[in-house]
């Protein structure tokens, strides 16, 4: 797989997002799981259609970026579009966002059980 984004001219990324370089919010974490709620339709922007296909099963934002070969920041903008149109839903992480906040002990127990069974 080629390195995403690296060889893309900036004007391609400009076109993909209609000229926007920042998303309205940072609502989409790298590990927010995105689920398509509709199928792509003819005439839809190809990146939007690709996201809907990839997200037929839950897919993290960072994986979508990797599959599309686009920087995460661009993918956040595209996801914001689809979300605003009700074409995707987002399952946000249930962990505190602050770097120094400790996670719920129940989640940690689940993680330990999962890791020990690997």
């Amino acid at each position, binding site marked *: 797989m080629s390195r995403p984004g690296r060889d893309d001219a900036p004007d391609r990324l400009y076109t993909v997002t209609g000229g926007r370089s920042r998303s309205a919010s940072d609502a989409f974490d790298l590990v927010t799981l995105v689920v398509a709620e509709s199928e792509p339709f003819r005439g839809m922007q190809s990146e939007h259609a690709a996201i809907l296909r990839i997200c037929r099963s839950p897919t993290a934002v960072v994986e979508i970026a990797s599959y599309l070969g686009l920087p995460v920041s661009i993918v956040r903008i595209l996801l914001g579009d689809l979300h605003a149109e009700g074409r995707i839903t987002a399952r946000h992480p249930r*962990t505190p966002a602050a770097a*120094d906040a400790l996670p719920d002990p129940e989640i940690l127990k689940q993680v330990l059980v999962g890791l020990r069974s690997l």
Partner: protein
Amino acid sequence: MDSAASDLTGTRPPLRSTVDNGLKIVVVGGFGVGKTTMVRSVSDIRPLSTEETMTQAGEGIDDLTDVQGKKTTTIAFDFGRISLDARTVLYLFGAPGQERFWFLWDRLFSGTLGAVVLVDTRRLADSWYAIDRLEHHGTPFIVARNDFGGPPHSAQQVREALDLSDDVPLVECDARSRTSSRDVLIALVDHLYTLVSGREPAQ
């Protein structure tokens, strides 16, 4: 025109439809210390790579026409994933430890469970900045010494070289081994659990 998702995602297994909680652990360290090796050892999928970009100007820019002439930094990072149960998936990120990547760190650390600082005892100075940054953010971490077969150093020597406080666990590992890499993650989560328990009010 409607190609299958597998054209884009390759042969990677999709997550279960019930998965609703994504967790993050960051593996940081200098070049060549084995971050990607460790991610590959425990990941359910072949590690993927993606990029994050940031303009030096930072916040509040809505239009690329404002960004002309401003410096955009793009860096790549690797990641893998481990499905833990029907609802939970753990993402492991390998992040370069060099100072110039501070902005990626700030993003990756947000909401992360904790971090593994992977060190090569022949190049301990490569991890100083990473440890500083983690301490600054208050992100819990452990240090894992990847065994490169170099000259032996005692754990105490490594602790002193890294100026590690006594409550930060230091473990040995072989990043090529799935079991060993898994045990590093378990050591981190055990450490987190201890921290959580310790912060609960005494009776």
